[in-house]
Each structure stands twice: as C-alpha cells, then as structure tokens.
C-alpha cells in the first residue's frame, strides 16, 4: 500500500471536506439545503482551522 505524507493543513482540509459532506447528507431534508449546509460546515471548519492556527502562533510568540 502506498504511503502518504500530508501536512497538518492538508490533513485538516481533507478531514473538513469529508466531514462536511457527511454532515450535509445526513442533516437536512432537501438537496439544496444539504448543499448549503455542507458548504457552510466546510467554511466553518476552515475558518476555525485558520483562526486556531493563528491563535497558537501568536500564543507561542
């Protein structure tokens, strides 16, 4: 099996993507609502990732 090396950012983006797809698919009732919710979840994941990343960088000085 091939070995894969991902950076923290790449791994977090992939995690956000697949989690958002599943959350979108299982939570809402129409396809349009699912798409919107999935995109919104992904945006929140990425915003949290970047925000927390900066917080840790600034916290370390």
């Amino acid at each position, binding site marked *: 099996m091939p070995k894969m090396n*991902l950076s923290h950012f790449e791994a977090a983006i992939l*995690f956000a993507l697949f989690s958002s797809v*599943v959350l979108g698919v*299982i939570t809402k009732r129409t396809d349009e609502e699912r798409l919107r919710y999935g995109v919104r979840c992904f945006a929140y994941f990425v915003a949290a990732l970047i925000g927390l990343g900066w917080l840790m960088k600034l916290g370390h000085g």
Partner: protein
Amino acid sequence: MATNVKAQAEAPPARGWYGVVLLAWLVPGGGHFLLKRPGRGALLLASVAIMFLLGLMMRGAMFQPQTGDVLTTIIYCGGFLGDLASGLFYLLTVWLGYAQPDMAGHVHDYGTKFLVAAGLLNVLAMVDAYEIATGEKE
C-alpha cells in the same frame, strides 16, 4: 387501552430496521442504498471509504481495547469502537493484515485519527439510515 394505542403509534413501522442498520454498519451508505437513496448512499460510502483509505495510507494504527485508568480506558476502548464502526473496512483491514502497529510521528497520528473519524462518520450514517427506516425522516 390508551397507553397501548399510544405505544403502537410510537412504535417503528413494520419495515424492520435491524437489517438496515446492520447493512449500514457493514457497508457505509449501504442502509441508504437499501432504502433507495442511492445518491446519498454513494456520498456517504465515498466519504467514509476515502477517509479510511487515507488513514491506512498515512499508516495510522488501529486501537486495541485496553483498560487501566479512566483516560486510558476511554481512549483505547473508544478508539476501538470508532475503528470497529467502519464495518467491513475495519474487518478486512484486520483480516488481511493491513492493520499497522502504533508508531511515533505526526503523520501516523493523523492517520489514526482519520481511521477513527471514518468510523464515527459511519455512525452518523447509521443513525440517519435508522431514522429513515423508522419513518422519522424522509
């Protein structure tokens, strides 16, 4: 009498949900396929499968249940249940010898988390399939 009527009204419909949930566990998205929701089933299958494969390719470790102090028990037993929730992916990985030993390194650590997260996403898919099968959701 009134209690019986209420209980019957709250009971799941005649369609058995056991098979749906079992299939949803074994094959991620399988419950949705069985309930004739192929699009959603395919998205769930792809998400869980890709996440699980990425975890394996990052050489993530499978948890083995261990007991000891509370934190050890929660991490190892919870991690094992999370891995197990991937259904056939987990069973095939263990049976075919692709389960990796725990190794130091941040990429391996991401892989271990991806493997558990794939199982947890499948738990969400199983709950959704259960709700569809019992008529709580369309």
